[in-house]
């Protein structure tokens, strides 16, 4: 939460600065199978966020001592391109990317059937090409579809979305200005059956506001899940038909 000198009125006539209703997602676009070298891949746009995820594996673990005898290990690398943000950032991981890589991995690992592939590794790479608040959730959504595209057995897809508090109101999927000047931000990720695999929060919420934000974020995840599912179904029917084409589905709410 960055500080703001003047009071911004975030909601006017029931609509947000970008014209959305409080419970409305930004436009979302998902493409699957966008990379040739990766075993699975997915490109996601959520508002102005542009992220791409690739999955490699199951494959051999290097270095060896990281290997687990009874299951595959999962690695997740969240990385921002230098040009993805307003002011050019130095390449390479910073403390924030280490944290987001950890929580991203922990958001996905609960549904991956790692015991199918002992002694191997499943590598998930997420590149943030353009950032506009919500890159961690966009990255998890892309990674989840890329895992499915790579044929990794999972208990279900993971869908991820944030709720926030701005101008006293709980809103879904905050964009940049709402994130910068808002009162709270709470990204979550969940399974299709509603179990929470990611939960972070910072800012200030009463218990009641927290409950409201949680329900709103879950409804966002459910909407995203529908898009993810639709894209994957089209991808598979297409693959059965033509083989090797790219699937693209655009959905707004």
């Amino acid at each position, binding site marked *: *939460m*960055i*500080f703001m000198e003047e009071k911004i009125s975030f909601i006017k006539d029931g609509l947000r600065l970008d014209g959305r209703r409080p419970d409305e997602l930004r436009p979302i676009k998902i493409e699957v199978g966008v990379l040739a070298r990766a075993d699975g891949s997915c490109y996601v746009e959520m508002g102005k966020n542009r992220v791409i995820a690739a999955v490699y594996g199951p494959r051999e673990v290097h270095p060896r001592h990281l290997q687990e005898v009874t299951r595959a290990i999962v690695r997740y690398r969240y990385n921002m391109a230098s040009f993805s943000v307003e002011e050019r950032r130095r390449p390479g991981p910073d*403390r*924030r990317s*280490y*944290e987001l*890589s*950890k*929580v991203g*991995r*922990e958001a996905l*690992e*609960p549904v991956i059937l790692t015991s199918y592939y002992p002694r191997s590794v499943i590598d998930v790479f997420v590149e943030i090409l353009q950032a506009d608040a919500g890159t961690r959730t966009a990255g998890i959504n892309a990674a989840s579809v890329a895992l499915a595209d790579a044929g990794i057995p999972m208990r279900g897809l993971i869908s991820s979305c944030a709720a926030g508090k701005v101008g006293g109101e709980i809103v879904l999927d905050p964009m940049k200005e709402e994130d910068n000047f808002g009162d709270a931000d*709470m990204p979550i990720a969940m*399974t299709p059956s*509603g*179990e*929470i*695999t*990611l*939960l*972070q*929060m*910072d*800012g*200030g*919420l*009463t*218990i009641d506001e*927290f*409950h409201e934000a*949680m329900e709103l974020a*879950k409804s966002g995840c459910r909407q995203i899940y529908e898009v993810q599912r639709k894209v994957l179904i089209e991808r598979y029917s297409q693959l059965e038909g033509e083989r090797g084409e790219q699937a693209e589905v655009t959905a707004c709410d």
Partner: protein
Amino acid sequence: MTSVISEIRKDYLYNLMLRGERGDGRSFDGYREISIQRGLIEKAEGSALVKLGKTQVLVGVKMQPGEPFADSPDRGVIITNAELVPLASPLFEPGPPNEVGIELARLVDRGVRESKSLDLKSLCIVPGEKVWIIFIDVHILDDCGNIMDASSIGAIAALLNTIVPAKKFGLGEDYPLEVKDVPIATTAMEFGGVILFDPDSDEEPIASTKMTVISTADGRICGMQKSGTGMLATDQVYRIVDIACERAREIREKFLEV
């Protein structure tokens, strides 16, 4: 070998839990004994040695004038760092902080920052040029479980004990740092459907999920973080948050109220 022993311990602890018990006799939402020793490090502007059961964490606060960030020219700067030195656990390795250490430091930082316990504007010396930099350094000494909560308590205890070293830098008389809130982190773990608070180093390895909730004096939540490779049902989350705020209130009143 290790895994045989850990399997046996897992079974033992699981069976205890089925009977509603923990290894050291605590209730599921009970904390180990807490002690706080302030001012141990005279060379730091503030310090606190926290013992949470056998877990020991030393937090030092140093202050010095420096440049503000470009996007907040009239505010002081908080820099929080955690060292999980190999002295503290057979599992810690020398080297720069790994993702566990980074997550810990960032959570401690979030607690201080989001609770607005420090009025950053009051730490401005010359707008755009010189502000107070507050370094909060968390040094883990003995990891017998739940270093997160011990570090969070240590950080705020050290801040409550901090004297702004104005004189040393020709900025007037020294004065106590103003602390406006007392954020407390409380951490629960989940295992086989059971929720335990303040897990010790026997319990932590069997947790599939942990969740930390940071709350303020007026009972608001100012930070949350789920970690670990498991998942939580929504009602589990709600329950953890309720108990967490309650435990935080008790700890705050008992140890940190001024």
